[in-house]
């Protein structure tokens, strides 16, 4: 599904990591760990084709990820950043904007989402709440619930925060998505520790 081969990355003249390789297949979760500033987020951005790599290559289904192909490959990806500082007024706007992207072939109905939220222990009233009244942990769960209903082959999650989030990531992987998760190692099939040199 997704292969990273001998990848080296640097930012601002500082080498982050070098010669890192891994393969993540459908339904697998790989956990990327390392010290703060070791390039975990940068690696996710490189997988999305939003940052250059110094050497090595990244392939998706055997096709090389390049500047030109990145936009197409991103349509196969879902991404949850570490900090959710999004300027949405309401949770409903957050959900609507995400689920209505052209890259989502399947749209989730509000009823389906509410039923699923019930299983996750999330209150249905959250849907109409202001984003400022909902904690970041819960907003992350809400976004992941949209990922569950609008499944993508590759899911990138930066620093999961709670156990509930990890459980939801497992549910998403069981649908056949390949997950690359940074930070938390509570949920993973493989582990990669980012180092400057191997």
């Amino acid at each position: 599904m997704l292969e990273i081969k001998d990848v080296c990355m640097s930012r601002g003249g500082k080498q982050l990591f070098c010669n890192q390789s891994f393969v993540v297949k459908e339904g697998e979760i790989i956990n990327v760990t390392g010290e703060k500033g070791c390039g975990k987020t940068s690696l996710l951005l490189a997988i999305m084709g939003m940052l250059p790599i110094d050497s090595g290559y990244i392939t998706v289904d055997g096709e090389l990820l390049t500047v030109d192909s990145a936009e197409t490959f991103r349509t196969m990806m879902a991404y949850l950043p570490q900090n959710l500082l999004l300027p949405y007024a309401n949770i409903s706007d957050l959900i609507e904007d995400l689920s209505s992207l052209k890259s989502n072939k399947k749209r989730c109905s509000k009823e389906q989402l509410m039923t699923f939220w019930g299983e996750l222990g999330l209150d249905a009233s959250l849907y109409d709440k202001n984003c400022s009244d909902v904690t970041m942990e819960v907003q992350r769960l809400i976004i992941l619930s949209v990922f569950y209903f609008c499944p993508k082959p590759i899911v990138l999650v930066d620093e999961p925060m709670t156990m509930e989030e990890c459980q939801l990531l497992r549910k998403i992987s069981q649908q056949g998505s390949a997950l690359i998760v940074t930070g938390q190692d509570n949920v993973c099939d493989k582990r990669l520790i980012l180092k400057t040199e191997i």
Partner: protein
Amino acid sequence: MELSILGLCLGLLLLVVPLFIMYRYRLKILPKALMGITKMIVYLCVTGFFLKYVFEWNNTFINLLWMILLVVLASFTTIIKAKLKLSRFFVPVCSGILVSAVVVGIFFLLFVTGLKNPFDARYFIPVVSLLIGNMMEVNYKALSVYYMGLKYHNQLYYYLLGNGATHSEAVAYFVRRALEKVSIQNIANMSVIVVGLSPLVMWSMLLSGASVLAAVEYQILIMIATFCVSMISVVITLWVARHYSFDEYGQIKDAVQHIDVNQSL
């Protein structure tokens, strides 16, 4: 209605009143006021000097050159007021102003006023100048809203891009905010006309002897044309600016502000 030298001097004499009040109440803006008044007189005299010949020659090529000069000046002002990088935004802003002013201006002169030659200096220059001048104030605010939005809420842009959004989808929120700014500003200008904003076109036409009906019609149509020009201009500017504002990886270039992705995400 021509002014006599004496009339002109008496008109200028009116300046004594505000200047005296500033002096009497020791306002610290007296030097600034004098500088502003001098600049206005010099600019208008220079403009008038050139316009005299432009109107006398009434040559389509020269009229178009005059319009391009106005577009360049308006672009400089817009970019500087929006606090953007001149080198990076000159082409996009120029394109937006030029295309919208030409398209709407020619439509207005050709179809609304029914002129056979829309490039006649007497009509072409005032109409195009009014459109460019009026849209400038609105456009710099819209561009400022767009780029400040990208600067302070870039997390949204990267988040949507990472979720497979096209570039247009990822910047849609910021484009909406910019276009809302243009619309609100134009609607506000329209709704406070007479009360808050003087209908200059109407008063000028009445001064030059036009009928009240014609003056009112022109005022309304110029306001609508300005609204139209502003919207088109912002859309074109943002579309062209895409190639100057984002790099090949979709990262926002430092034209706006250097953004550390690791911190912002």
